[in-house]
């Protein structure tokens, strides 16, 4: 690394050389994060089809394989789907706003990928270790809504527009509950840096994770995350029985696939954030010999997979919410719960030192 930096500085001078060097290394790290993420997205769709199939006593995709290997049957399905999507024509409806129609899927996937910049995979492995990481994540996820609104409007179709309006109202409402749940996390960790949030949960066992003192917030965050990503049972933005496919009814081919990718990338992002903020990120469940020798990234990935399983499980289990019930859950149940919990947490933190040293409070405060 130092050698390459030297070469850059020699060729282009101190200032421009080091600037270009950091640009090149950052682009390299971005690719290192994005490529496995997109592969993960592809295989998440496969996992979803398989898991839901088994829950419904079916087999799921079991044909496409690599090089005719029999025990890999079905594993080629996401690759085949991607090839099919690339081959398809992108139909732009008459009367649609062409520029915004193409821009919308781009705007949807951009924040889903940009948020990964501050996600710590292990104590050292992080692209941008900024001290306002949590705020950055909130800002990025709140921008994802634009793609959906613009897609709904640019399609020039009533179904798409209805889907976009539903989605906008839903995402804005659930963002509040999500933000308040995160306020609890940063009250516990006293830091906005995601790495510090994980370090704050370090201890002997999983009892130190914020999952336990903030259990209601964990539930609120997870359910709001499902609502934010427009997944079942909160998928009224798509609502195929009412408004065909909602905001992306007019999209086809790769433009549709980008929406699809963004939805799954957002799912992985929410699962990652949940495991970082409530399930101790890269920390092992019990800090003893065989468990703490496993690298942290393995623990993080297994926690992400665990949360992602919940997303798929929800989809196979619950019927779709009615729209007024979604709004009621967000505004009248989640926001009061989170506000009360912030007050309770503040009171506990202001208790005298002697009370906070008593078990079980001494584990977390």
């Amino acid at each position: 690394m130092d050698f390459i930096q030297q070469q850059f500085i020699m060729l282009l001078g101190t200032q421009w050389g080091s600037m270009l060097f950091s640009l090149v290394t950052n682009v390299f790290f971005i690719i290192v994060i994005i490529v496995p993420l997109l592969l993960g997205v592809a295989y998440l769709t496969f996992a979803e089809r398989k898991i839901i199939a088994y829950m419904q006593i079916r087999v799921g995709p079991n044909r496409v394989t690599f090089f005719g290997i029999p025990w890999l049957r079905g594993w080629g399905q996401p690759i085949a789907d991607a090839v099919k999507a690339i081959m398809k024509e992108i139909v732009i409806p008459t009367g649609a706003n062409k520029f915004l129609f193409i821009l919308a899927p781009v705007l949807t996937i951009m924040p889903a990928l940009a948020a990964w910049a501050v996600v710590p995979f292990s104590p050292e492995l992080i692209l941008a270790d900024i001290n306002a990481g949590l705020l950055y994540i909130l800002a990025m996820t709140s921008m994802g809504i634009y793609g959906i609104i613009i897609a709904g409007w640019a399609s020039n179709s009533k179904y798409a527009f209805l889907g976009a309006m539903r989605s906008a109202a839903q995402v804005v409402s659930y963002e509040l509950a999500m933000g308040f749940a995160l306020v609890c996390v940063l009250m516990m960790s006293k830091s906005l840096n995601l790495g510090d949030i994980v370090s704050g949960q370090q201890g002997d066992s999983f009892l130190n994770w914020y999952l336990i003192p903030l259990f209601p917030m964990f539930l609120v965050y997870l359910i709001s995350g499902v609502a934010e990503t427009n997944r079942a049972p909160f998928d009224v933005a798509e609502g195929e029985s009412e408004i065909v496919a909602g905001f992306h009814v007019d999209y086809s081919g790769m433009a549709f696939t980008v929406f699809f990718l963004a939805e799954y990338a957002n799912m992985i992002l929410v699962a990652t954030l949940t495991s970082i903020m409530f399930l101790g990120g890269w920390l092992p469940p019990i800090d003893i010999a065989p468990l703490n020798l496993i690298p942290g990234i393995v623990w993080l990935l297994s926690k992400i997979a665990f949360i992602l399983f919940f997303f798929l499980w929800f989809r196979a289990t619950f019927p779709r919410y009615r729209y007024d019930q979604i709004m009621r859950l967000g505004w009248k149940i989640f926001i009061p719960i989170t506000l009360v919990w912030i007050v309770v947490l503040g009171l506990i933190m202001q208790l005298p030192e002697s009370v906070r040293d008593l078990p079980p409070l001494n584990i977390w405060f």
Partner: protein
Amino acid sequence: MNFQDIIFYTFSAILIASSLGVITFRNPVYSALLLVLAFVSCAGLWLLLEAEFLAIALVLVYVGAVMVLFLFVVMMLDINLDRLREGFWKWFPFGALIALVMIGEMAMVLMGKHFGLEEMPIPKGQSADYNNTRELGRLIYTEYAYAFELAAVLLLVAMVTAIALTLRHREDKKSVNPSDQVKVKKEDRLRIISMPSAKKE
């Protein structure tokens, strides 16, 4: 000219172009979207000034929430541009007066030396462990606690007023009360009657 200058001029150019677009485009949806772009590039400029909390709060509050509702309204309403343009010349002198006042204020800020104003020194760069958010929080909750509380109460009053103005109970609305639904017992809905079976003719 170094790397930082290039970033500054890029963001500034985007900011000025998109702000001009906001007031010149005829399609209100385009204007709203360009305002979003202006906010984002403004946040980029604030990041260059090491004001990361303000920059992210701008994106979070204005881009993430306020402009979404703006777009919501602009897309829902069918805005008639001809009616909007009717009173243009009638109100033009008033608008021009406000514009002149604003230009004057801006000039006084930018050319502070000529107006006998103290020029602020360029703020010193802070060390890497300096935390903008922490400093802001410390100031708001200690020195400026009362001003902050006042602003918060003002917002709360506005919020309550907005809800109170739009809340009305309609008799013809067919919505269901979820707590009534949960509380309902089998006896309220279901009546089991014993009925002798009828003979087949």
